[in-house]
């Protein structure tokens, strides 16, 4: 178990280093165009560019530069954002926090909802309830976020006038402003997780051990909760952990639409403005989140499945 943990963490670090190398080669070297041009613009003179390169240390060997860059990153020095004219850290952290809040509420609503409905529909495959939930799931998943964002705005902001149309939180945090972006995300992702859960549950319900549980004369509730559920949750668990990655980039449209000051909106701005340091930091954050959520998923697996725990 300890060895497994160490292995997973080792693998995690390895992945992050590989990604950082790719990132560095793409953004900090001449591979995809001159970084000096990217920062100073097309109209800067060669002289200006040379001075900038000298100042920023771009004339040193690539390996030395990478080592320095990595060292800075590891110690939390993420560089300076040219767009926000300040340390990247000060810009990034509040934005990340905002997205975490949005993500938390999205998940807090979406996971219980989709698991419950998925399980209900998988319990009796082909029943009226199952078909209703399945059709509803497909319907919501097939409407993209930008469309449902427009639709919900029209309904709740302009029609019923219940909710504010922007979520910029300019006067401090307000829960009401969070509702619409969270709703759009929940509606989009719910169908996917629910359908995964349904498929997994339906399969478990046809398994022989569920049959033997029924034929043992156990109450139906016990058959479901004790025998079916735990095995049925293994597959949706993986999907849910993958949704965390999706959420990081998936929020771009929603955050932009509702003017929510989150990570997605920041990523968009950074790439539109060639803000290299910010872009690098954002990319690394995304990698860290992806790798650690998968590590958690792997460890979570061993608890759901004793066959892995004691092999």
């Amino acid at each position, binding site marked *: 178990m*300890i060895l497994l943990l160490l292995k997973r963490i080792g693998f995690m670090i390895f992945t992050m280093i590989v990604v950082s190398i790719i990132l560095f080669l793409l953004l900090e070297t001449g591979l995809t165009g001159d970084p000096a041009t990217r920062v100073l613009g097309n109209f800067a003179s060669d002289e200006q560019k040379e001075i900038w390169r000298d100042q920023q240390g771009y004339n040193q060997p690539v390996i030395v530069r990478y080592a320095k860059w990595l060292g800075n990153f590891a110690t939390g020095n993420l560089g300076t954002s040219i767009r926000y004219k300040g340390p990247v850290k000060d810009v990034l952290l509040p934005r990340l926090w905002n997205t975490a809040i949005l993500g938390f509420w999205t998940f807090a609503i979406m996971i219980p909802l989709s698991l419950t409905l998925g399980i209900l529909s998988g319990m009796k495959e*082909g029943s009226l309830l199952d078909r209703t939930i399945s059709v509803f799931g497909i319907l919501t998943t097939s409407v993209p976020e930008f469309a449902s964002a427009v639709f919900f705005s029209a309904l709740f902001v302009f029609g019923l006038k219940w909710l504010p149309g922007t979520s910029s939180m300019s006067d401090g945090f307000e829960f009401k402003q969070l509702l619409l972006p969270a709703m759009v995300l929940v509606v989009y992702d719910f169908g996917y997780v629910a359908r995964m859960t349904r498929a997994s549950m339906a399969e478990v319900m046809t398994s*022989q*051990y569920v049959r*033997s*549980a029924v*034929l043992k*004369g156990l109450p139906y509730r016990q058959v479901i909760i004790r025998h079916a559920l735990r095995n049925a949750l293994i597959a949706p668990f993986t999907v849910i952990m993958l949704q965390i990655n999706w959420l990081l980039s998936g929020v771009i449209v929603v955050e932009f639409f509702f003017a929510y000051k989150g990570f997605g909106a920041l990523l968009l701005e950074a790439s539109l403005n060639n803000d290299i340091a910010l872009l690098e930091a954002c990319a690394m954050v995304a990698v860290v989140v992806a790798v650690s959520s998968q590590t958690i998923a792997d460890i979570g697996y061993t608890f759901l*499945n*004793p066959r892995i725990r004691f092999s």
Partner: protein
Amino acid sequence: MTDNQDPVLLCKDLCISYYTRAGEIPAVVDFSLTVKPGETIGIVGESGCGKSTVAMAIMQYMGANGGIKSGSITFKGRDLTTLNEDELRSIRGSEISMIYQEPFASLNPSLKISTQLMEVPLAHENISKEEARKRSVQMLTDVNLPDPERVMESYPHQLSGGQQQRAVIAMGLLSNPSLLLLDEPTTALDVTVEAGIVKLIADISKKFGTSQIYISHNLGLILETCDRVFVMYSGEVVEEGTINSLFTWPKHPYTHGLFSCIPLPTTDKNAAPLKPIQGQLPLPFERPSGCYFGPRCDHFEQGLCDKDHFRMENVEGSAPDHRVRCLRYKDIDHTKEASGDTAKESLEIGKRVLNVDGMKKYYEVKDASLMALIAGKSVRHVKANEELNFTAHESETVAIVGESGCGKSTFAKVLMGLETGTEGEIRHKGKDISDIEVRDRSTKQIRSLQMVFQNPFDTLNPSHTIGGQISRVIRQFGIETDKKKVFDRVMTLLDTIKLPRDFYFRKPRQLSGGQKQRIGIARAFAGNPNLVICDEPVSALDVSVAAAVTELLMDIQREHKTTLLFISHDMSVVRYLSDRIVVMYLGHLLERGTTEQIFAPPYHPYTEALLSAVPIADPEITKRRIVLEGNLPSAINPPKGCPFCTRCHRKIGDICDNEPPQDQVVSDRHVIKCHIPIEELSKIKPVIIVPDESERIHAK
């Protein structure tokens, strides 16, 4: 057991149907059954005959599309078909419980055995958890599981197949049911493990007074466990009676046909070969009018057997509960017929084709646990094959016998070149092939060494036609390249395997299991091989189909003088068709010799146990019962001395634990690897005793 006791279960004129889009499919028709207290009833039949449907109907677990069309199932005076879910729940698991075919699939993989056992009494009785636990441990002891406390704390995957099935049986018996349904409880288990479970099942009714319904396709197992037997064919019972009357005087042509399909100790591949039942089982919606068995029956009479559907009637002059569904049973005199098929000529054994000399195969296993790293034992060896020595000649059938995990499939892989041997030689026609991988072998070598696989369902590509798949092999082997000639060759092969020529255009899904296995055989024989490995080629097939495929293999061998290496765990099939036998256990070769030598003393103790474990469907053959204790040891950590010492019933002392035994030569090419001197082993009485022909009352 007295006749005036109220029956436990009474099925009367039961008709069960499945309702699909294609319409109603009658699965079981006109089924009547009485189970008395303490009685064990056997239901026997081939797949698709409706025997499992009956069990599921008794449990009232039919799925969404199944239903009871007419008739009643009365359990202790209550009609089960009229009960609601709650009432059923109070009966399921407490009054009627069920044991399943695959123990691993029927145990929940993520719950401990203790949870799965204790919930049975907790659901049905008002008792405390401690009481439930105490009772579960007691029951595990009763089903002869050693160390029940450890089993309680295990997850299903930590137990062996036999232990799992014992745990499932314990689960079924926990609330002391009046009726136990057993649906092929030993089919997924090894023979020696099966013998233990069968003994346990036979003890249950004595110990607990439980009535049982035992469903199986194996007549031998039914004979060993049951009091009365029902033979089912195509959804209906064709014959029923006590074990004694039905096995001694089978009346229905189908029952009789089944007996002719089993390789009993009285059959012989040359003098009295197996006689397969002609034709195929009709699909439920294609059943003929009159007798369902009519089209396959040798005694079919037009105008009589094909008119109306008829009912069971009592057999005149036999026991009162011996009943048969046949209008002509009185006219058929089974004694006049030869029990087997017409005699076939025996083959001359030719020159040596295969010589295995000291072949070893070790697998490296990397142990990644922290403990192993510290102890410096991170690489260990699985000794899959240890010093194999034997030979095979032209036209000879050599059987490799052993239970799962004994290394017989590893040997086949090395022979085929899917793996390379670690040490020693395998000389095929004089050339060592043990370390040449299959892709480095010449086409000629590959062509002359082919294999028929165990599972015909997975070995054919579902998206290609039969003809296409066989033609490809012919072109690959470079036998023919011309399109027309390839086609002709496929046609000859289809004739050889006795399938109609228009099968060329069929896809695998349109074929039955037996037909697929025939295609597998055609593929193997496409390049006229001189050595064919058959890895359990008939174990996945029904009795009558298996007989036909076995006979086909024999016929092709006669024609082509092929050497067959027959890998199997079934001693009765092996006895029937092989000339020489090699007995393997845990990678070691424990005994080798001709079939007669293996089946007569002196035996290796393991051979003795294997012979004893084979169920024989003949009540007049007596058998000494030897049940092996314990499980197969792990191949990573084999016993230091004799590989069999942990389970041996004839262990003589420390020498068995500490020193590996040497080969003892009994006579030319009959070798036993054991510490017990040959003189001692020779004194052992035969395991299977077949009475003289004159003493027999059997109808055959």
